């Protein structure tokens, strides 16, 4: 059983990581590399004479196969990590009578996206390279706390009996009322349009990655369990 869990999570994580990486190369990385031109000063958007224009031109993602290979590899590691936790929770629910199928797995995946990407991303949106943030420790703590609070809230909605599900509302709101750590200065050098597109595309690819992860975890596990 545990062996099925580990095998299924790794297979699903590697596949979802590959899907996510390919989507990132198509949508996210070109924006990231365009942002790097502003980070390094190769391009300047906010010129000193008061003009705030710069040409929109995406660099090709190039032939740095080591860099992009690492992006694929680390996506696989990240999605495998999330997959191990997600599938352990799925199996726990399955043992409690909430039968796991690839379809319910897909819902688990979307819920994972909401808890792990969307909720913390509302307070700390994905940022381009070169963005300056507050001290990393408190931001990581807020990030982890938000994920846990949102995940518990979603579990209450999905499995809570009666009015206990209403507890999910304060749970989901709490991290945002406390508020993510923020600086009192804006440091951004990249055009706001570019940053916004980068953030939105990151969410989009993460949603695809997480949906794939949930579906595939359930798919591999239900099949392994049959055999």
């Amino acid at each position, binding site marked *: 059983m545990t062996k099925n869990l580990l095998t299924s999570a790794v297979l699903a994580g590697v596949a979802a990581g590959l899907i996510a990486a390919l989507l990132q190369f198509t949508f996210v990385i070109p924006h990231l590399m365009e942002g790097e031109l502003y980070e390094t000063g190769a391009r300047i958007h906010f010129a000193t004479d008061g003009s705030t224009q710069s040409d929109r031109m995406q660099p090709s993602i190039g032939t740095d196969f080591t860099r992009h290979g690492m992006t694929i590899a680390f996506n696989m590691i990240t999605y495998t*990590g999330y997959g191990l936790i997600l599938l*352990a929770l799925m199996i726990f629910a399955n043992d409690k009578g909430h039968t796991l199928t690839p379809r319910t797995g897909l819902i688990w995946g979307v819920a994972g996206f909401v808890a792990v990407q969307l909720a913390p991303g509302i307070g700390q949106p994905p940022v381009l390279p070169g963005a300056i943030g507050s001290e990393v420790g408190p931001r990581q703590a807020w990030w982890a706390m938000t994920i846990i609070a949102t995940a518990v809230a979603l579990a209450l909605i999905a499995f809570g009996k009666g009015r206990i599900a209403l507890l999910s509302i304060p749970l989901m709101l709490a991290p945002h009322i406390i508020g993510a750590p923020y600086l009192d200065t804006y440091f951004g050098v990249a055009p706001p349009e570019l940053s916004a597109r980068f953030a939105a595309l990151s969410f989009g690819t993460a949603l695809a990655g997480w949906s794939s992860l949930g579906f595939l975890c359930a798919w591999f596990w239900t099949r392994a369990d049959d055999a």
Partner: protein
Amino acid sequence: MTTKTASIARDDTSSALGLAIAVLAGVFLLVASGMAQATVLHDAAHDQRHAMAFPCH
């Protein structure tokens, strides 16, 4: 379909230990891929960390 449901129910032996091991392994991988500050690891994971919005620096 009926057979499948039955077989899942019969194999209902997932130990708490097994689930805990999976969660710990997952957290370990995430710390390595998303949080670890070692320069080599940070640079290699750079693009992926930005795309996945890890609060890493």
